[in-house]
């Protein structure tokens, strides 16, 4: 499927999926990150952990549904052969202890210091952080998958987050429909621009200061 036919969310999910290597264990946040499963290279094995206590999540079987086999969003799922059930203490020991290779979460704001805000907006109903603060504190690679600007067209990649933080200095990578940034040592580096975009658009829609990678290349999108 060419990128033109994909929705913005699908484009982002497809690009995120390229970050996974054979054997990786990943945790996919609720919502758009869950879409990433659909784009994982079928030639590699990627194991999905869900923080409610399932290691080895697969697609829900159309025929064999169990009310107790769900992911952290409450959606019915299946389990791979070799998958296991664990309790919440073990689940978060795996998460906080660095045993998960990558987590993919949405973001409201990310800043150039790698700070993340994705759990509350003052004045709105506060849903609670759930497992997000632990996931970003402990996972080896924290990938924020989000649209480049918000619904009002405002930048979400900022010099400094203005919303309450989920965690400080934890973001490894930002993937949007327009670009990919790596985040290390308090610095953002633009490493990819989508074929639909160009550097001037990225600059216009990004408040944060960033470095352009020497090996910057357009992402071919398939």
């Amino acid at each position, binding site marked *: 499927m060419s990128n033109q036919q994909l929705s913005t969310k699908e484009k982002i999910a497809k690009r995120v999926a390229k970050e996974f290597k054979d054997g990786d264990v990943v945790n996919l946040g609720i919502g758009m990150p869950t879409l990433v499963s659909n784009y994982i290279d079928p030639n590699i094995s990627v194991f999905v952990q869900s923080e409610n206590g399932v290691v080895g999540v697969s697609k829900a079987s159309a025929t064999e549904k169990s009310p107790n086999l769900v992911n952290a969003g409450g959606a019915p799922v299946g389990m791979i052969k070799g998958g296991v059930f664990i309790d919440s*203490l073990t689940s978060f020991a795996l998460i906080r202890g660095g045993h998960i290779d990558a987590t993919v979460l949405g973001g409201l704001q990310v800043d150039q210091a790698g700070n993340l805000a994705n759990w509350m907006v003052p004045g709105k109903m*506060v*849903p609670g952080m759930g497992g997000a603060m632990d996931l970003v504190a*402990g996972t080896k690679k924290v990938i924020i998958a989000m649209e480049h600007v918000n619904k009002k067209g405002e930048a979400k990649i900022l010099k400094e987050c203005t919303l309450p933080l989920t965690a400080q200095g934890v973001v490894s990578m930002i993937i949007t429909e327009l670009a990919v940034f790596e985040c290390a040592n308090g610095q953002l580096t633009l490493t990819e621009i989508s074929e639909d975009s160009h550097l001037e658009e990225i600059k216009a829609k990004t408040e944060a200061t960033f470095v352009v990678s020497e090996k910057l290349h357009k992402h071919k999108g398939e």
Partner: protein
Amino acid sequence: MKVIKKEELSNLIKSNQTLMIGGFMSIGIPETIVNYLSEMPIQDLTIITNDTGVLKNPVDEQIGVGKLLLHKKVQKVIASHIGMNAETGRQMIAKEIEVELIPQGTLAERIHAGGAGLGGILTPTGLGTIVQEGKEVITVDGQEYLLEKPLQADVALIKAHKADTYGNLVYHQAARNFNPVMALAAKTVIVEVDELIELGELNPEEVITPFIVVDKILVKED
């Protein structure tokens, strides 16, 4: 004999107590117990639980902590997520209840600490966020951590799949979640099970919760 009928719950659970309730969204909740509780003449409970469930329509189908909230049994909720049940947010904003939000992995370790006789744990989760407010920051080998205190309860209400007559427990799939860790952290532990089986029918290698922490067993009603 540990096996009880639900009518005996009124001798075991009182107003103003702190209760832990197992479950993750609508999975792994001691429903028969919670339903009975919501009809008992008690009030001002403090509830420690992962989340306040998913608001359903009609409200009669509400399960778990949501039902206790609807019946105004609760004065305080300690949880990681309340966003799927708008009634929790409504009561919080109306100041009918107090809500303390805790990162999910911190919640699990605080309950473990309560059950294991620890004075607390140090976690990087929540550093530099509003979770840090009012908490001690402790530096260990150059890294900062939040000191998180143990959680304990008067009564833990948990859900298991099977119990033998001593109270050894096994769980089912993702319905395990917070139940095993809560089983160590309360003065009285009451388990609701799908099935009560004979002593010796469980493989001693696969028991998740050892009988010595379980005080009462109630067989689920359909």
